[in-house]
């Protein structure tokens, strides 16, 4: 549900229940010795930026029971409050991420029955699981959560992983590290243009049609259920959990959040919205300026990824056929610059937007926001995109997004104003929980990526896009002495079932990983080379198949002891 004024009370109730639960669960005292002593804090005499429009100096903020208790030049500080010297700190509202996937893993694929019909697969095989909730695949202890919190994020809407309709989202607050801290469940229905592998719907063609079919049958099915509920002697409605999952989108009690990866996907999502009439949120908007009129028309909410394209053009040096090449590179540069300007253009067009973390690298966040600011985005719009806009899109502006009395104690405390290069985050308060960070003497803020940091051991799940659709499987690496061994699974190209060839020539140097494997296709041994870069738990690279071509291959590490909540 989206939190509206109507259900705000219910929402608060849920919220308080969760707090109470925390307290009662430790009724038998804490024997770790690590529980915090008090949940009250006072940030004294500080510089406060309570909203993108409003700032004050020399204010004291009192935090109590997870809420902002008091703000003022001289409030009474409760005696149990822990003091935070705020004189040289700059305090902002905690950032809100309207589309994240921190701690979210992909559900295992169900086993296919022997009489599996790829032309008419059951929904769950085809990536159609809108009845799932992302919390079923969420690991509250995943290190990604700390990665983003450390950058100031205090609230995120989690997007489930999977196919075209992976499930419903939930909003959590990144507070108590021992809890998932659910703010609201089933806040939006997640959708994307991902075809199913080797079955209907495999391409965008099928996905568009399937989406319409489900939506319209959900409408019919809901009408049938209403009729059945109020009349005797009717045919029993066949319960269909996919259609049922769509019911709250029919009356717009929740929106559909479409992840898009380019301008055309954006237009396709808008097209579906116009035909069917649901509330639309677009995540991953890129190259969006030409679509602005349609976005306004559809009243769609806009989310930008914090990721920007890599700047390759400015690094290149022209070689042979210099003049001709220079022209082509100029166009690449132009495109790159355009991508930096997008946020500024949307601001000028008066379209509110928020930044999301899904698909972004935490290490690039600050750099990317600064780039957008250098290219026309105002600092206040950037702050709004991190805070109040996200709150509004999630419908939680009554409790988050700005610093006001009665709101959740979600704060970011920096050593300087937010977008200054020298600014470092010293504390984050999320849900009233305090997180302290070391302030480093300023060096060049580059992330180091030494040899020792990269570890590939364990299970990875990969996806490869080919002109025939995407293929998926698992990679397993283990280390024997100093060498790696491994296997990879893939669908048998000529029959059914999966193959699991051994990897050869596994090489890891720095963060560059490469290996090869062989598959027998119609009597020919086909050698397949994979190479690319490891970045934390992500691998992005390509797979080349003999003379035939090379295709993108991305993988994500499967957490070893993923705790399912």
């Amino acid at each position, binding site marked *: 549900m989206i939190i509206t004024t109507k259900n705000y009370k219910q929402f608060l109730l849920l919220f308080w229940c969760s707090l109470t639960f925390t307290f009662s669960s430790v009724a038998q005292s804490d024997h770790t010795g690590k529980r915090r002593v008090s949940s009250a804090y006072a940030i004294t005499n500080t510089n406060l930026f309570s909203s993108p429009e409003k700032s004050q100096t020399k204010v004291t903020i009192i935090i109590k029971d997870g809420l902002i208790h008091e703000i003022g030049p001289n409030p009474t500080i409760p005696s149990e409050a822990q003091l935070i010297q705020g004189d040289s700190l700059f305090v902002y509202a905690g950032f809100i991420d309207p589309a994240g996937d921190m701690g979210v893993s992909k559900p295992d694929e169900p086993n296919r029955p022997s009489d599996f019909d790829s032309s008419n697969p059951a929904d769950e095989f085809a990536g159609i699981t809108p009845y799932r909730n992302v919390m079923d695949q969420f690991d509250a202890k995943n290190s990604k959560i700390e990665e983003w919190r450390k950058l100031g994020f205090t609230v995120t809407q989690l997007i489930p992983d999977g196919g075209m309709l992976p499930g419903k989202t939930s909003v959590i607050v990144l507070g108590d590290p021992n809890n998932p801290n659910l703010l609201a469940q089933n806040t939006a229905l997640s959708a994307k243009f991902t075809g199913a592998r080797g079955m*209907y719907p495999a391409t*965008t063609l099928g996905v568009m*049609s399937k989406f*319409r079919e489900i939506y*319209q049958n959900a409408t*019919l099915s809901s009408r049938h259920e209403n009729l059945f509920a109020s009349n005797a*002697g009717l045919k029993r409605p066949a319960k269909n959990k996919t259609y049922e999952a769509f019911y709250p989108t029919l009356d717009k009690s929740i929106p559909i959040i479409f992840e898009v990866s380019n301008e055309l996907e954006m237009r396709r999502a808008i097209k579906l919205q116009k035909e069917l009439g649901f509330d639309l949120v677009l995540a991953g908007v890129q190259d969006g300026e030409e679509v602005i009129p349609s976005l306004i028309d559809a009243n769609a909410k806009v989310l930008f990824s914090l990721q920007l394209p890599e700047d390759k*053009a400015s690094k290149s040096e022209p070689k042979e056929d210099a003049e001709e090449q220079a022209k082509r590179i100029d166009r690449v540069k132009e495109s*790159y610059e355009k991508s930096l300007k997008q946020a500024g253009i949307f601001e000028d067009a008066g379209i509110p937007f928020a930044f999301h973390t899904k698909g972004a690298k935490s290490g690039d966040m600050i750099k990317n926001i600064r780039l957008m600011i250098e290219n026309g985005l105002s600092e206040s719009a950037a702050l709004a995109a991190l805070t109040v806009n996200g709150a509004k899109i999630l419908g939680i502006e009554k409790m988050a997004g700005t610093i006001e009395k009665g709101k959740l104690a979600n704060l970011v405390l920096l050593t300087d104003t937010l977008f200054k290069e020298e600014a470092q985050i010293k504390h984050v308060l999320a849900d009233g929980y305090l997180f302290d960070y070391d302030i480093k003497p300023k060096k060049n803020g580059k992330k180091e990526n030494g040899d020792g940091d990269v570890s590939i051991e364990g299970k990875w799940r990969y996806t490869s896009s080919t002109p025939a659709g995407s293929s998926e499987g698992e990679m397993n690496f283990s280390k024997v002495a100093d060498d790696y061994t491994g296997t990879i699974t893939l669908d048998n190209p000529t029959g059914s079932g999966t193959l699991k060839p051994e990897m050869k020539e596994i090489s890891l140097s720095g963060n560059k990983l490469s290996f090869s494997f062989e598959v027998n296709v119609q009597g020919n041994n086909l050698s397949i080379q994979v190479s690319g870069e490891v970045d934390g738990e992500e691998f992005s690279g390509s797979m080349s198949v003999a003379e035939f071509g090379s295709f993108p291959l991305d993988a994500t590490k499967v957490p070893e002891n993923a705790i399912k909540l």
Partner: protein
Amino acid sequence: MNKNIYLLLAGLILLVNAGFAQTKKGSVLIKNATVLTITQGVLENTDVLVENGVIRRIGQGINAPANTITINAAGKYLMPGIIDAHSHIALDAVNEATSPITAEVKMEDVVNPFEVSIYRALAGGVTISHAMHGSANAIGGQNITLKHRYGTFDPDDLLMKEAPRTIKFALGENPTRVHGRGKSIQPRTRMGVEAVIRNGFKEAQQYQKAWKDYENASKQRNSTAVPPKYDPRLQTLADILDGQIIIHCHSYRADEIYMLINVCREFDIKNIVFSHVNEGFKVAPELAAYTMGASVFADWWAYKFEVYYSTAFNAAILTRNGVVTSINSDSGELIRHLYHEAAKTQRYGELSDEEALALITINPAKQLGIEQFVGSIEVGKQADLVVFDEHPLSVYAVPQMTFVDGVKYFDINEDQDDQRLKVSATEMVEPIYLKEHDHKCMQDVDFFFTNFGRTLFGHTH
């Protein structure tokens, strides 16, 4: 059909109309050209006046109204924009190859206005292409007729709103390979293809009846009638039975063409065009009597077994037997020189200039149901026009300018070399395409591991 779906459709139509209100329309006076009207002979030294996207006057000594550009085409040839009745350009996906019937999928959903192939088609004088689903399924998806208004970022701007609905069917090797051999489901043989199509139509009839019953029942006072399940696949097939959709059927062998003619006659379907139809010449009398015609290649053959017994004289034999015949590209390469493909019928069968040019203008227009709007130079028709330096059927002819709705989208003297609309922000090294042909009829189908060897060697239409 229930009310919601009606409303939905009504909304859709409004939407499409709204979108087209903004389509660019141009005005231009082309003077002193040799005008190849197609339907009304050749007019020497003639002027054609275009106003607001429509041909207003054809004659001599026409003066340009204020604010209308004049182009002197003395010594040049003016012909109607070329129409390609079978193409796969400007599409992000071609085959939803996962089911033998996918009538519900729409090519309209995957139009990609950024493909430079649209511009290259314009540079070959092609102003309209029929963007089709591929040939993997016995009944494929719904095609879309595009006007090449290159430069727009909105796919809807490319749609030709006046064009009727069309759908792709496919017979023979492709559907039997993909489904029968590839996935062990019907059809595996040409018998199975017939059965799948017949089953589809029969089920569609039942579906139509279920909805009719429901609608009748729901008209009763205090009706508690329960709506049937909505099935866009069967609904589309029902629309074919109702005559709302023209079938364009990928086919090669005479027997399979004859089979579908019989099935259509049985279901009283008259709107059918056969495409490729390499052995169409063998059943030319039947094609003439019972169909909207045949859309063929000028000379492709021997790339697979079902086209081994072909002849480049196909178009001539069909034309001489009274079949409405067109020449199509099915390829991002051929679409650039359809005027040359049409000219080959003069080598293979000695068609007249008028007959040869009809193959790429008025005849494909008829097959797409748009002949009242385009396909010839006549007063009142849309101003889709091409200027050639020599007669377009000469191998030395070079298109000079191409107009769609009176707007100039190609001018050989204003070409910028790099005509891409969109460039990747990170792609520093551009791909280099070295395959000589670019045939997409089977795109998205077993391209990767399966049939690996076959695709390596090119021809897969």
